[in-house]
Each structure stands twice: as C-alpha cells, then as structure tokens.
C-alpha cells in the first residue's frame, strides 16, 4: 500500500486517468485513421481512374467524331469532284444546285463551293460571299492542295476575313488540273468541340501544329500557353494522354489531349481537378466530417469512461485498504489473544503454588502450639486474603483464556447472552476505573445464532470501548440488552446503550465510514465502527445508531437466526 492517502483527485489517479485516456484515444484513433485514410486513398485512386477513363473515352469519342466529320465532308467533296466533270462544275448554277442539295442533306455545314484552276483563279463559286474570280495563287492552302490529291486546311481568315477552313480535292482533265474547294462552316465545326462540356469547368479546344486555335476555346487561353501545351503533346508516342498539373492559380487542372486529322491537329480537353473530382471531394468531406464527429465522441467517451473507471478503482483501493486494515486488526487481536493465553497459563501455575503454600500455612496453624498465638486472627485473615486474591487471579486468567480461545473467525452456534456476559466480564474492570457501570438485561431462552464468536466479540468490545471512551471523564452507565426482534423476523437484536455525551448530528451519517474518527491523531484509526459494520454485514445482519447530544447513544445490532423448528433440538441439548 502506498503511504499517502490517495483520494480520487490525487496526482496518482490523475496520471492514471491521463494514461487511460491516452490509451483509449490512441487505440481507437489509430484504426479509425488508418481505415479512413486507407479507404479514402483507395477510393481516390479508383475514382481518379474512373474519371480519367471517362474523360479519355469522351475525348476519344469526340476525336473520332471530328475525324469522321472531316472524312465525311471530304468524301462529299470527293464525290462531287469525281462524279461530275470540270465543265459541269464550272457552271455556277450547277454548283449552287449541288451546294443546296448538300445543305439539305447535312445541314448548313458547307458554306460555299468553288472551282479553282491550276493557276489559282476561282473559275466558279457558289456561296454567300462575292468571291468569283478570286485569285488564290498566293494562298498557302492552294499551294499545298495543288500538290496533293486532297487537302484539309487549318483554320484561317482568308479573303473573307472570317475564320474558316477548307477542304480541297484535286482532279485532272485532259487540259489541266483543277480543284474543287469547299469551305466548312466554322460555327458548325466549332459546335462539335464546344459540345464537349463536362461539369462546370470542363471544355475542349483544338490546336494546329503552330499552336493556333482551330476552335474557339470557351475561356481565355493565351497563345503562349497554348504553344506550351502543343510542344508537350506533339511529342506524344501514344495518340492520347492524361496529365494533371498545377495551374497558375494553384488549382490542379486535368488535361486530356488527343491527336486528330492525321496528327496535324491536337484536341485538348481541360477541366479543373476540383470540378472533375467533385463527387469524390464531396464524399471525402462527408467522411472527414464523420471522422471528426466520431473522434470527438471517442475523446468524450474516453474522458467519461476513464473518469468512471478511475473512480471505481479509487473506491476499490479505498475498500481494499480498509480490508487490509481490518485483516491487520483481526490479526492483531488474534496475536493478542495468543499472548494472553500464554500469559494466563504461565501465571496460573505460580498462583496455584502460592495458593497451595498459603493453604499449607493454614494447615500448620491448625496445630495446637499455634492456637494460643496472639496474632492468630491476623494470620487467618491474611491467609484468607491470599486465597481470595488467588481466586481473583484465577478468574482473570480464565477470562483471558476464554477470550483467547475465541480469536478465530470460525463460525459456530453461539449463545449470545453467554458471549455478552463474558465480554462484559472483560470490560467491566476497565469501565470501573472510569466510574462506569455496565448493566445487562437479557431475554432468556434466545435461539442460538450461527456466527464467529471472536468477530462478535470484536464488535461488542468496540462498541463498549467506544462508550467507555465517551464517558471516560463523566462516568455513566452502559446498558447491554438482548431480545427477539419485533421489527425483523427471525432476528435477535442486541442493544448497546450509554448515557454519555452522544454524537453530534453532523457526525452521525459518517461514523461507519472508514478512517472517520473524532479521536486525536494517533489515538484512533477510525476503523472500529467500519469494521463492526463490515462484520455485521458479513453475518447477514445490520447495525444502526441513534444518538442525541447530552442524552446518550444507542447502537442496535440485528443478527438473523435459523428457524425455530430447525434448532429446537440443538437448543435443548445445549441447555
């Protein structure tokens, strides 16, 4: 046992509580954090993969769409160029007719058609602009398309000062090569890319090899930035790639890029990561909120639980301490008993010898020669006194021995009145010095009770000693009574009553508490009554106290006994 008294608030228990809180928190948080983190990480990877796959597919589809669109238009133009002769196509009326039929078939995708000879002169034109006889000899697209079978240009402003691009197909007749040129409506083409919108920030645009926009991006991207993308993506081995990089604003941005139109153009899709992973971020936020709330709950629980546990431990410690003290007290009593037995036995023999010697002198005095002695009467008186005192010694030693015999806690049938008589015999001497009288009032024929005599002895001695202590200066009377209890069925009640100073009302509720004492330091342990309480509880009985200041204190002890019929035989045989 530690030396100092450890109340629940002491540093020992506070550090115990801290340790418990720490252990609970660590043990609960570690798996929670690991699981949360693990799940979020896995989820993030999966979700990223899913989003990437989705975006990639989206981009791929659009890329294919655009390629198909271009091929279709090319096929349309090719069809016109191969199936109709130069002469037919040179006829503007015919050309207009064809343009109208194409419009009907595919919508207003092809803005105009034109026939250009090998010198770059537009021979015939059908469309909304006045471009008849325009000379394209210097135009970049013309020089390229006259050399190849067909050509799809980048977007440029051209003569009309309006962004567009051209599909040109070369054909030859006997005299010369000529080109059928179709202008693709920029709006129609743009809408193909513009339709690629995901979330709130996802959009796509197309760059050519020079880094010029082929479509109108929906937010402002400078040409230099665009060129930066271009450099990166033109070196792609694969046709497609996904990267995530930090933008200037610090916001990560996802780029998906794909080459199209025979790797001449680059379609770039970009979206803010926060937008693309919006659902994931939302889920993550929920998880974090749940974790946070759970964490708070764990911490609160850890504190509450630890506090309760520590309280229980403190209480147990206190009880344990008391138990230990009780064991020590009982042990002390037992060893005192043994000592008393030894002393009693050792004293008994010399006393016996003294009494015998006195008897011998008495015998000798009977002889005639002493009969006339002057002091005969005195001799006789002295011898009688020796005899009387010897008998008194005998009485004391016998009481001590019988006390010692009962310092074990084995349970047997006890006759309460006899037990009390014995204890009163032991205490009477001490009481007499304080001018205290002990009176007993027994109800005869009480049933036997099954208890440990030494423990009962301890209880009664405690009560009597307390009463003696209380009345040490004033003197008084201690009344000890026994009777069948009227209140409790099958109980004997033992009443120990004194007419001493009484116990103040404020102390009454605490007198059975361990370590509560009103005696000066070093005089009492404050355990007496709490031990009594414990013993009586163990016997299945109960103890209570009534006290009034200046009129006295009364303790009542109820002890259960076995039913009358069960012990009537015992009773008779022992009586």
């Amino acid at each position, binding site marked *: 046992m530690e030396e100092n008294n450890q109340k629940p608030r002491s540093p020992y228990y506070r550090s115990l509580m801290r340790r418990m809180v720490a252990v609970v928190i660590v043990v609960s948080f570690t798996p929670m954090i690991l699981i949360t983190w693990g799940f979020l990480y896995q989820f993030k990877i999966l979700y990223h993969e899913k989003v990437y796959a989705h975006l990639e597919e989206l981009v791929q589809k659009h890329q294919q769409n655009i390629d198909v669109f271009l091929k279709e238009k090319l096929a349309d133009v090719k069809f016109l160029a191969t199936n109709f002769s130069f002469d037919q196509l040179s006829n503007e009326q015919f050309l207009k007719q064809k343009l109208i039929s194409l419009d009907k078939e595919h919508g207003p995708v092809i803005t105009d058609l034109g026939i250009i000879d090998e010198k770059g002169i537009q021979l015939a034109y059908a469309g909304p602009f006045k471009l008849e006889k325009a000379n394209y000899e210097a135009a970049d697209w013309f020089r390229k398309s006259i050399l190849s079978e067909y050509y799809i240009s980048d977007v440029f402003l051209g003569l009309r000062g309006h962004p567009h691009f051209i599909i040109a197909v070369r054909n030859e007749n006997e005299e010369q090569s000529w080109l059928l040129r179709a202008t693709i409506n920029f709006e129609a083409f743009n809408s193909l890319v513009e339709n690629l919108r995901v979330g709130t920030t996802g959009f796509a645009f197309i760059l050519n090899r020079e880094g010029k926009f082929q479509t109108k991006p929906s937010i402002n991207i400078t040409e230099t930035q665009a060129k930066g993308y271009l450099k990166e993506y033109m070196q792609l081995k694969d046709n497609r790639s996904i990267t995530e990089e930090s933008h200037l604003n610090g916001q990560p941005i996802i780029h998906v890029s794909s080459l199209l139109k025979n790797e001449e153009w680059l379609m770039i899709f970009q979206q803010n990561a926060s937008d693309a992973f919006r659902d994931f971020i939302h889920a993550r936020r929920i998880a974090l909120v749940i974790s946070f709330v759970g964490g708070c709950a764990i911490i609160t629980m850890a504190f509450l639980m630890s506090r309760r546990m520590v309280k229980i431990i403190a209480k147990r410690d206190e009880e344990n301490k008391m138990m230990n003290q009780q064991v020590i007290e009982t042990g002390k009593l037992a060893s005192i008993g043994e000592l008393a037995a030894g002393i009693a036995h050792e004293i008994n023999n010399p006393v*016996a*010898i003294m009494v015998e010697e006195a*008897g*011998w002198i008495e015998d*000798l005095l009977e002889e005639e020669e002493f009969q006339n002695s002057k002091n005969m009467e005195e001799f006789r008186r002295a011898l009688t006194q020796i005899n009387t005192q*010897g008998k008194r010694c*005998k009485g004391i030693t*016998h009481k001590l*021995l019988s006390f010692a015999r009962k310092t074990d806690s084995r349970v047997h049938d006890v006759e309460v009145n006899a037990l009390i008589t014995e204890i009163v015999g032991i205490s009477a001497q001490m009481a007499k010095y304080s001018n205290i009288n002990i009176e007993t009032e027994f109800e005869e024929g009480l049933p036997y009770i099954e208890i440990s005599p030494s423990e009962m002895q301890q209880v009664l001695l405690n009560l009597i000693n307390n009463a003696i202590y209380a009345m040490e200066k004033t003197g008084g009377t201690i009344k000890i009574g026994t009777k069948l209890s009227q209140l409790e069925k099958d109980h004997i009640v033992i009443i120990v009553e004194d007419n001493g100073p009484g116990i103040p009302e404020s102390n009454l509720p605490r007198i059975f508490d361990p370590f509560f004492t009103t005696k000066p330091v070093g005089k009492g342990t404050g355990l007496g009554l709490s031990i009594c309480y414990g013993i009586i509880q163990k016997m299945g009985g109960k103890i209570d106290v009534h006290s009034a200041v200046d009129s006295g204190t009364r303790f009542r002890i109820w002890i259960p006994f076995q039913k009358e019929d069960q012990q009537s035989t015992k009773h008779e045989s022992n009586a």
Partner: protein
Amino acid sequence: MSDANILLVDDEQPFVETMTKRLEKRNYKVNAAFSGYDAIKILEKESQVEVVILDVKMPGKDGIGVLQEIKQKYPLIEVIMLTGHATVESAIQGMKLGAYDYLMKPCDMNELVAKVDEATGKKRAHEEKIVEARMKRITGTRI
C-alpha cells in the same frame, strides 16, 4: 474407611511438594511424580496407589497420554485431572478416556479432598465387587 493412597503428578515441583505435605497432613499416603514417565514408573513399583491426581499440561508425556496408559494397565485406579485452563474439550476428552473428574488449578483443598475421597470410595467399591464375584465363583464351583 482408611485413608487413600494417592499419586500426585505435576511438572511444577513446588506445587507437588506443598500439595504432598498438605495431603499427608490429612493422613493420605502420597507418592509424588514430576513427569508422566515418573508417574508410570512409580505405578509399576507401588501397587497400593488408588487415586492419581494428574496435571493435563506437562512437558514430555502429557496428562492425556498418562491417563490412557494408566487406564490400560491399571483400569481400577481412578484419575482426577487438574487443568490449568478451562478447556472444555480437554476435560471432555479426559472424561471420555475414563478420568473420574477434573478440577481447575488453583483448586480448593476441600474440593480436592472431597473428590479424592469419592474416587477412593468408588475404587474400593469396584474392588469389593470383584472380590465378591471371585468368592462366588470359587464357592460356586466348590458346591
């Protein structure tokens, strides 16, 4: 009735000596022994002993052991136990083993004398009965 022949056994020598003197003064014939072994030896020599006053608690062979031996070898001899402490158990044990009675030390002389006389009377009555029985047998067989 002539006075009894007593054997007094106790390890406390002064007690035995004084008690011997007091009993002799009352015309008893007293043999003293200071231990259980002594007591057995004396009994072997002295066939006249009628009553043994025996202390229960002695070093070496204690009162109960001596009592058992006496009752085994000399069943007619009566034994009065002296106990230092009033253990009912040892008294009951002694009575069961055939002791005549027990007294607590220090004991009253008159009480002791009375018990000794009673025991002697009982012993002699037993002996008389045995003699009578033998006589009857002897005469019976003759007739």
